[in-house]
């Protein structure tokens, strides 16, 4: 008799999801599905809107990573206008994205994942949050809060507000940084670096404690995809697409993001509004690939900054596990924060960030535009087709969390297989399924363009749909 475990909803991720775990007649886990049950329809209702409005509209997809949508959207807009944006505009957009990566990674690590790590996966869920973290490690909690604040301050300084800033536009940006803002940002960097280095040291010391989780949190070979600079350096704004496998071998390289459809298929499954992208040459579902910080660390040859280069080298020295376990997303996130801080510091000495030449203006010169950038959770694509008036005829948003969908399903199945050996849901399994899932920092608002709130429910169902065991939280 086949049985099914349902976790509904999953907590401490951005959005609303449900997980079904299928058991076979022997009570062994057979498969896992990650369902996203909400739909918002951005791709459809954007049709007919001017491409110049798309940044403002699509930024509303998500309150956590609106900046990522802004950047991918205006890059698509640049293509439609067929303009080369001023150097100052590219640098300022890069600065904005570095602030976004910093604040989002800080939220994910310090507010969402650190409580699991410091308090233990089996500690009381009511205390496994930033307040529990504050009691366990006051300095780390305070530093984490300030780190996220720092990223948000950069966004606010450039965009005028932390959430949904309307500062970037097709052709460039709407203004430079002021000297006062630059000096403020520069002055805060040393403290932010100290917090990040402390967290990295702490995290690296926990690998032995969490060996079981390292081995079971999505520990399998797959492809990894992300943007990389022409010389192989870590990239977050420009560059070309690269696919590597878990052995570090380059599978496909130097792919202009405008050719993404040649390499990425988008499968739709009936049980979820979340699409399941895959690497086309390997087909579905064998073309499973992962995106995001772990992918970017693995596929780039260097981070391009001294401290982060050293950390990346150490990461890669950890052997095969470093390129297979999704537990290392947490590790990679911290290395990326360090890299962002170093790059921000370097940019503060660049006079272009104060330049008054920050925008190119033009009308519609091409009817198609594809913008790609690295969002905190992975590569983000905005693909627009417009008419001669610049009105959107077709819109496709390919989101990082969707690209991790197949890997998240496999991660949940792996954790469940490790912890479930019978008809009961063992204590601890639920926490680890959630935490394993959370390693990807999934953003369901983005990936389905959906939103929601959630407590947690797990159901064990037999083949007839009868609930034989249920656990509820929240």
């Amino acid at each position, binding site marked *: 008799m086949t049985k099914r475990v349902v976790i509904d909803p999953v907590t*401490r991720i951005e959005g609303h999801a449900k997980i079904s775990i299928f058991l076979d007649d022997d009570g062994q886990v057979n498969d896992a599905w990650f369902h996203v049950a909400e739909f918002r329809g951005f791709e459809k209702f954007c049709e007919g809107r001017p491409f110049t409005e798309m940044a403002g509209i699509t930024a509303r997809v998500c309150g*956590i990573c609106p900046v990522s949508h802004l950047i991918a959207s205006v890059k698509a807009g640049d293509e439609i206008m067929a303009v080369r944006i001023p150097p100052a505009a590219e640098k300022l957009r890069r600065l904005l994205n570095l602030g976004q990566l910093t604040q989002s990674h800080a939220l994910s690590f310090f507010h969402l994942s650190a409580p699991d790590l410091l308090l233990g996966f089996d500690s009381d869920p009511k205390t496994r*949050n*930033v307040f529990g973290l*504050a009691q366990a490690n006051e300095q780390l909690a305070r530093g984490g*809060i300030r780190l996220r*604040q720092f990223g948000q301050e950069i966004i606010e300084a450039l965009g005028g507000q932390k959430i949904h800033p309307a500062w970037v536009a097709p052709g460039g940006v709407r203004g430079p940084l002021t000297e006062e803002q630059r000096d403020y940002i520069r002055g805060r960097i040393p403290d932010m670096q100290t917090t990040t280095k402390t967290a990295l040291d702490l995290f690296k010391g926990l690998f032995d404690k969490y060996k079981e989780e390292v081995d079971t949190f999505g520990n399998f070979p797959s492809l990894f995809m992300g943007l990389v600079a022409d010389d192989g350096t870590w990239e977050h704004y420009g560059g070309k697409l690269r696919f590597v496998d878990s052995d570090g071998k380059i599978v496909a390289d130097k792919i202009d993001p405008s050719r993404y459809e040649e390499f990425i298929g988008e499968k739709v499954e009936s049980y979820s509004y979340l699409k399941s992208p895959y690497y086309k040459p390997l087909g579905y579902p064998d073309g499973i690939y992962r995106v995001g910080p772990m992918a970017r660390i693995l596929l780039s040859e260097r981070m391009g900054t001294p401290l982060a280069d050293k950390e990346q080298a150490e990461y890669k020295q950890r052997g095969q596990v470093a390129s297979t376990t999704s537990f290392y997303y947490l590790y990679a996130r911290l290395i990326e924060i360090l890299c962002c801080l170093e790059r921000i510091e370097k940019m503060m000495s660049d006079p272009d960030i104060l330049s008054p030449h920050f925008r190119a203006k033009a009308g519609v010169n091409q009817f198609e535009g594809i913008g790609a950038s690295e969002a905190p959770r992975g590569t983000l694509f905005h693909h627009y087709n417009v008419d001669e008036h610049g009105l959107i005829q077709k819109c496709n948003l390919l989101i990082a969390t969707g690209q991790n969908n197949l890997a998240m399903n496999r991660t949940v199945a792996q954790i469940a297989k490790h912890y479930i050996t019978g008809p009961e849901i063992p204590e601890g399994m639920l926490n680890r399924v959630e935490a394993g899932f959370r390693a990807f920092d999934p953003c369901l608002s983005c990936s389905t363009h959906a939103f929601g709130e959630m407590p947690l429910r797990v159901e064990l169902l037999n083949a007839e749909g009868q609930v034989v065991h249920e656990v509820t939280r929240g």
Partner: protein
Amino acid sequence: MPTSREPDILIIGYGKTLRRDDGVGPHIAQILESWEHPRLRTHIAHQLTPELAEPISQTDVVVFVDACRESETEYEMREVSPGLDRGPSFHSARPEALVALALELFGHAPQAWLLTVKGEDFSLGEGLNVETQRRAVAAIELLAGELLE
């Protein structure tokens, strides 16, 4: 001898301005900001986040201003005590928790108030219902009477 001074007040107006009356908190904060009162600082947010704990710890008085759906009164101001009675909280927190976090991590919990204004229309869109606008004006008078006079 140090001279006594009037307490500084931080106004945090929060809510989603694209959900009509849910934006009454930001609306009130904007009005108060326009007064340019030397003791008032304002902050507008979609929701309460842990990053607010530090600025809260740096003020003498904090007033959280929020919309509410169900209420027997049109507007209400009540004192808030530090409290961590409910987790988890990641990018959304309650006033009690933020005041507690300010004390725990940054060493000071100011006197804290929550001013709530009953809303009528929380549908998608911008701008407040006329009735809610009227309540906002009255709520500002209450706040000013309690804290600025």
